[in-house]
């Protein structure tokens, strides 16, 4: 379920990003279904419910242009694009901003613990970009790292509190599985062979997070009633917070608005 949605979002972004079929460029994470994640919680499952916080990330001002990538040294990647590839730092469509990580920063009951789902989260390296670029996982949830390019990638995590890793994937079809054990928003992932390749993963001890898709929409589901601090994170524009109170089964809307960096 979750994986399908991620894939769908990636394809949608590809169309937006460069207009080429199958060359999913932007690689935004989809709207993660927090509920699906929470279902598989084991014995330590904390409280869940049927409340939700949904919204849209607005973007005001002129969308900054994304840096062009010179992929001339990597024909295998360059060949996957019909238009010159860019680093999708700003995914802006009709005044909406994608690739924003939205999560419950605080407000869950003290001592509530949630067990990571057995289903791993996948991150692909395709066309010398990461797909998705921004995504969430739970602590101790497996992250499957795939190389779909016939070139050498190394994938390096540079966390602040977790232990990092730096894996070489010199061939298409290689997979590696890693996980993070401590909550950390966000852990940067990078490829040093291709300095333009960046991704960010939000590591949380609970399943209440989502990534805004290319239309800027996000939805955090299955929340127990309560008052939460919701934070929205963007790789270039920083963070914003809102306090939201939901009753049992209540669906609340909470939008965020980012404005472009000052020239």
């Amino acid at each position, binding site marked *: 379920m979750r994986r399908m949605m991620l894939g769908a979002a990636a394809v949608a972004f590809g169309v937006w990003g460069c207009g080429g079929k199958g060359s999913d460029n932007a690689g935004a994470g989809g709207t993660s279904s927090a509920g699906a994640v929470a279902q598989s919680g084991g014995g330590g499952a904390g409280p869940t419910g049927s409340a939700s916080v949904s919204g849209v990330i607005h973007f005001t001002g002129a969308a900054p242009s994304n840096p062009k990538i010179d992929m001339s040294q990597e024909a295998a990647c360059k060949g996957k694009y019909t238009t010159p590839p860019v680093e999708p730092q700003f995914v802006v469509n009709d005044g909406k901003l994608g690739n924003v990580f939205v999560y419950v920063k605080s407000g869950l009951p003290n001592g509530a613990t949630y067990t990571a789902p057995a289903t791993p989260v996948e991150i692909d390296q395709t066309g010398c970009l990461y797909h998705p670029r921004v995504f969430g996982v739970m602590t101790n949830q497996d992250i499957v790292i795939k190389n779909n390019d016939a070139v050498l990638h190394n994938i390096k995590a540079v966390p602040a509190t977790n232990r990092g*890793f730096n894996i070489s994937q010199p061939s298409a079809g290689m997979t*590696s599985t890693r996980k993070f054990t401590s909550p950390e928003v966000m852990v940067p992932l990078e490829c040093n062979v*291709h300095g333009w390749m960046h991704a960010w993963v939000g590591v949380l001890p609970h399943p209440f997070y989502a990534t805004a898709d290319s239309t800027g929409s996000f939805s955090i589901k299955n929340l127990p009633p309560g008052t939460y601090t919701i934070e929205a994170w963007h790789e270039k524009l920083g963070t914003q917070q809102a306090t939201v109170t939901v009753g049992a089964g209540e669906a609340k809307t909470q939008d965020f608005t980012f404005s472009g960096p000052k020239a």
Partner: protein
Amino acid sequence: MNQATRSTANSLREHASIVLNNETAGNCQESAGSSSKRNDPAVSRPFQAVSFCNQLMPASSRSRRSLAMAAILVSLATPTLEAQDGKAVYTKWCSGCHGDTGAGDGVGAKTMLPHPRDFTKAVYKIRTTASGEIPTDDDLRHVIEVGMPGTGMPEWKSRLSAGEIGAVVQYIKTFSPNSFKGAAAKAIAIGKAPGGDGVTEGKAVFQKLECYKCHGVAGRADGKSAPTLKDDYGNPIRPADLTENWKFRGGNAVSDIYTRLRTGLDGTPMPSFQDAVDNKLITDEQLWRVAQYVHSLSPEKTPEAREVVRAALAQALPKAPEDAAWGNVERFWIPLVGQIIDKPRWFAPTVDGLWVQALHDGRSLALRVSWDDPSKSPDPIWDEWLGRMSKTLTDVDGPLATQQGPDRLVVQWAQNPSDESKRPYFLGGDSRSPVYAWRWSSEPKVEEGTEAGLGKFTALPNAQVTQNARYADGQWQVVFTRPLTSSDTTKIPRLTSGHAIPFAFYAADGSSGEDEVRGAVSTWYAVYLDVPTPTRVFVAPIAMVALSAGLGMLLVTRAQRRDDGRGETTEDGSSHREER
């Protein structure tokens, strides 16, 4: 002690006090002073970085120092020291670079590249544990004992007792208590290198794994991705130059290299290749082959600096740097260190040594100087690198250039080579005693002139020195040619065969912000031109042979004539004539 060596000693003293704490500096001063009394250390190994100060010291001084240190050790050594005891050792010896809180921010840190380790993150390059894991105690102990070649981290085995090192290991772990609170890390199992010649297969796997993307096709750290590389802190970082394995941070044995391939170097762009083996993309044996191949890219023996470069006599001088004739000419390693005496000082030189070859034909001298430099400066793809360099090496005697300059090489000579007592100051001479210099830059061009201190160059008219430069695979090769004699004998030394003629080198990498003062220097070395064999040496033996043969013939002929006259009977009664 002449003026030049005195200045060197003073400079070393100043340097020592910059880099090291008082006690270390005291040690350094002493050794530097004694080394300056010796003009001709037969064999020095300055590139075996024990400390910056030691880099400029001949081996003999270091061994003297080691003796002194052994004496200190005896008084200090106590068994079973723990973390709290480690604190005292750390504060005394380590905090100058690594900082009081272990954050890698000691007073000496800012100038160093690579920066000293930040212990608060517990991310370590040299481990026997899997990528991302904490090191074992033995890993930490090992690095402290042997140091990290090519960096400012010296070996401590000769200074600290095993107990003290063990205590420091426990103490530095306390800077990152969360990382070390769990179970101890487990070392990965390292097997044995497979036998046989693995170099050919190793090369193929090296290609397959695309190691060249960073390390370069010839292994000289000039891969396409090299200009973009940074460490976990955003500092610029270079891939290892695989042709200079004496600077490998974790050692240069095949098993060391294999271990780095398995574990990666955490905190740097160098990944672990464990997953490539786990995915059966390559076998474990093939990873060993890569290690064997990488090992083979460096000279079998770590080069030692020799004081005198020999210029053999040749019939013709090869002008082109790529001329195969250079392959038969003995090469001499001249180590360079950062110029840290004149301001602005430079602690992070790109060029750490030169290979020098010399030939002469009785009329001209040809020098081929080869050195590794990953960038042919200026080159726009290195702009970002220069930006990172300026950001990282802040506050070192003013900002770096914002624009890349050319690469540079200066070959300087004593103006009066025969006068040992007037050897100029090794840093480009001074106003009272300038040096004669060839100033090369990567346009490429060479100027001939005099220098009265670093960068204070005055060109001479009618330059006679010519250059022929080639840049390929991360290496410059420049052939300089100059007639042995000159009309201006006051400023331009005569290159007389049969004498050691003092010369010294300066090199700079324009794309790293290096220029005429920020760069790498050598001390004085000398070139010795073989004495041409005079013609009589060839004629005399032939004449002697002819003469002997002639005289012999004469004697035989005369003896035979006598025989013909009277015959001669031997003891057995037969006669020579009859036998014939």
